[in-house]
């Protein structure tokens, strides 16, 4: 899971039936330099499926690829990014 910061919300009008009712967040993945506070350069954002009601500014651990759909097994959704955890505290040294 990479670490990302939530910068917005995405709403879907027409979507795959299994995706209706879900919440989607716009997330920017954080590099080591971002986490250390040494860089404000922003990587490209991605859309992450969110079950936990995460808010703007929250730091999350998001799963990508196969593991993003795994929580819904065996009723898989076509997701490639999933909010696995809202991170309360991040300590980098």
């Amino acid at each position, binding site marked *: 899971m990479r*670490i990302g910061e939530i910068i917005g919300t995405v709403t879907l009008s027409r979507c795959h039936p299994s995706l209706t009712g879900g919440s989607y967040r716009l997330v920017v993945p954080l*590099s*080591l330099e971002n986490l250390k506070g040494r860089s404000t350069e922003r990587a490209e954002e991605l859309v992450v499926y969110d079950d*936990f009601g*995460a808010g703007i500014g929250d730091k999350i*651990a998001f799963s990508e*690829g196969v593991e993003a759909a795994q*929580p819904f097994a065996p009723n898989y959704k076509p997701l490639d990014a999933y909010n696995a*955890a809202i991170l309360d505290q991040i300590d980098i*040294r």
Partner: protein
Amino acid sequence: MQLARVVGTATSTIKHPSMNGWKLLIVQMLQADGRSPDGDPVVSIDSLGAAVGQDVIITSDGKGTRELMNSNITPVRWSVLGIRND
């Protein structure tokens, strides 16, 4: 399996239930020189007690991690396989 350096730790209360009780480490994968960072840091689960500053071997074998966590629905992919000695 990849070589990575433990650069930090993370805590979370609101998370996927399969992750309850698992230590979350923030690890930075390294390039072939063993020093330069390779990509973004990732969150890995750890049962071996690796400390910040140590080098570890992590695996992206999701199936292996699901077996380690005894959960078929966990979203976790990365886990620590070993801690480097020297």
